């Protein structure tokens, strides 16, 4: 091995990335070469200095920082979850009513009353609008399934081409809001169906969607 070869392989040697035979060859060269011995000593010295630098330059967080950070993350996450999905139930029974309204618009149906007649909304072609489904109930529910079936020509923004979307969700006590941002891609329209299932119980809400150009 030459001194030049050693210089090229020095990092691997110091990092312990060489196989035993190669490492032995390099070690033997260093034993007999004063210059390379010094080069190795400097490389190892630099590594030790970096370690010391690492220890000295890292501030310690406050004693309660991790606890506070975990609590804040959970608090923020739960708040966002509640804002995203909202639903309720009572003793395993999905109860209460469905309310629909459009963002910036008016209530389409009286709150807290199961709609005797199908509510309806009017959308303009290619104009996104948010439809909020509100579920009210008395207690929390875990592992409920929500399925939204869309009419022809209507999509949920972000789910292009999907006529049916299903996901697992949980319901909080009180009012829960499910915002669906819809866009009409063609003038067909029809019935939008949202079904909430939990432990064999289910409720389906229907909304008539009309589309104007």
């Amino acid at each position, binding site marked *: 091995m030459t001194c030049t070869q050693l210089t090229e392989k020095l*990092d691997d040697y110091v990092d312990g990335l060489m196989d035993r035979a190669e490492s032995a060859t390099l070690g033997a060269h260093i034993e007999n070469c004063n210059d390379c011995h010094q*080069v190795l000593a*400097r*490389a190892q*010295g*630099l*590594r030790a*200095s*970096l*370690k*010391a*630098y*690492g*220890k*000295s*330059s*890292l*501030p*310690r*967080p406050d004693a309660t*920082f*991790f606890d506070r*950070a*975990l609590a*804040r*993350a*959970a608090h*923020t*996450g*739960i708040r*966002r*979850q509640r804002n995203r999905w909202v639903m309720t139930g009572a003793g395993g029974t999905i109860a209460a009513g469905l309310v629909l309204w459009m963002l910036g618009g008016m209530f389409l149906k009286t709150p807290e009353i199961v709609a005797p007649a199908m509510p309806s909304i009017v959308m303009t072609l290619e104009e996104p609008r948010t439809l909020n489904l509100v579920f009210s109930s008395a207690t*929390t529910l*875990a592992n409920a399934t929500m399925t939204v079936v869309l009419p022809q020509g209507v999509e949920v923004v972000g789910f292009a081409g999907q006529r049916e979307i299903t996901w697992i969700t*949980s319901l*909080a*006590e009180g009012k829960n809001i499910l915002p669906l941002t819809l866009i009409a891609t063609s003038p067909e329209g029809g019935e939008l169906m949202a079904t909430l299932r939990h432990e064999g119980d289910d409720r389906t809400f229907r909304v008539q969607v009309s589309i104007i150009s």
Partner: protein
Amino acid sequence: MSSLEQNQRASFDTLLRPHLDRLYRLSFRLAGSKPEAEDLFQDVLVKAFARLDDLLDVREPGPWLCRVMYNHFIDNRRRIRRARLVCVEESQLPGQSLDSLPGDLDPVRDAERLDDIMRLGQALATLSDEHRLVILLHDIEDYKLAEIHQITGDPVGTIKSRLHRARARLREALGTDGTNSRP
């Protein structure tokens, strides 16, 4: 808070806690100052909570969390306004003291070591972000090449040659003979 939310909170706590120390260190190495590191750390914890279901399925949460942090840092680099990894402010932070050095009760030698370390910090500050980060992760934080690959997504060979070049630059910055001795 519902029982579901309480369970989520408990799972999150249990899953994250063993990795917080290393995650914090990475946060500081990336962000470069304590306030920015704490912001970055907090952002990543919020992201991790939002992806709790994914996290529960991950076999090795440590590297997964580090990668989330690295990506978040890269995506928000401008917003985070990463300071130099070595700066005057840092020298005033807790931990930057002789107590944290391998002292031998020799004040003169300790002072010399502190001086060496400050010079090293200044030399590191002259490196590019890419070179500085690979040295900080590998030589200071003891991440393996494969772990750095897991975090950054760069091929191991690329990381290895980057590390080699970074060390060469650092030696140059410290002096022509590559030593860290005082003039």
